[in-house]
């Protein structure tokens, strides 16, 4: 991939900006489900892009900055939800980076689903530590199930995006 410093920094900044925007917009979208906490994971798209183009380190940078900026805009910086989102972002980035870089058999759909599940599991573990209770684990089956359609959706978007990567990323990657 492209290694030129300035272009990389510019492209990563754009990814962070897009991720922050998606993060904030996503917080406004209400998912018509009886359980709270399920969301589409649109902001995950830019994390995958950053990993895909530049690797784990830059993917993690984009994910962390996105969560930080998104929480500052949303006014929840350092609130419990922020800590959960942060752990979720870190764990999903790790899972997706491993699958993207170490395996060849998954499409973006599989990677997104694994990322969604990694996000939810990391988040639940953080929540159980934070609340000092294992009762939140009752959420696990629901969140696992929710990770399938949301992961498929973002994975589908990523697949379509990468079909046009030669046009979109011509100047960057």
């Amino acid at each position, binding site marked *: 991939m492209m290694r030129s410093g300035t272009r990389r920094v510019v492209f990563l900044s754009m990814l962070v900006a897009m991720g922050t925007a998606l993060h904030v917009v996503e917080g406004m979208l209400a998912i018509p489900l009886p359980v709270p906490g399920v969301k589409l994971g649109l902001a995950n798209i830019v994390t995958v892009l950053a990993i895909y183009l530049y690797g784990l380190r830059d993917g993690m940078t984009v994910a962390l900055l996105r969560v930080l900026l998104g929480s500052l805009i949303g006014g929840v910086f350092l609130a419990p939800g922020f800590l959960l989102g942060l752990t979720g972002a870190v764990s999903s980035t790790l899972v997706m980076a491993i699958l993207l870089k170490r395996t060849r058999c998954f499409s973006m759909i*599989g990677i997104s689903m694994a990322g969604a599940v990694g996000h939810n599991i990391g988040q639940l573990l953080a929540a159980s530590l934070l609340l000092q209770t294992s009762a939140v684990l009752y959420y696990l089956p629901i969140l696992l199930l929710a990770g399938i359609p949301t992961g498929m959706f973002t994975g589908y978007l990523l697949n379509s995006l990468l079909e046009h990567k030669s046009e979109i990323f011509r100047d960057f990657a």
Partner: protein
Amino acid sequence: MTRADKVLLVGILLASLVSGTALYSRFFLDPVGAQPIQAVVTVSGKAFRTIALQSGARSSFVVQGRQGASKVEVDGRRVRMQQAPCENGICLKQGWIEHPGQSVVCVPGEIVIRIEGAAPLDAVTR
């Protein structure tokens, strides 16, 4: 979707179902409604009688209050004051009670029927 994607999908689905069954099965096997509920009758502050409320059981008994004999009727999971000597009849108008926390109170007779047990949630706010 590749083959590996589908395997992953089925894997997540299975993990969700298995963990869901493991975690939630006890709620299905032992729903809150099946937990024991009992009616406690007190006269002048002293426990007079405790009746387990179960479906199908019917009975009635007489309670001697300060103003005379009142009659309590039990019908399965619900209970009521059937007859009372006083002229107000407020306890009679209270009708059947069946949920934990509900009570029938006869002030002149100093008789209280109260349902005890695990109370269900009144409401959930988010």
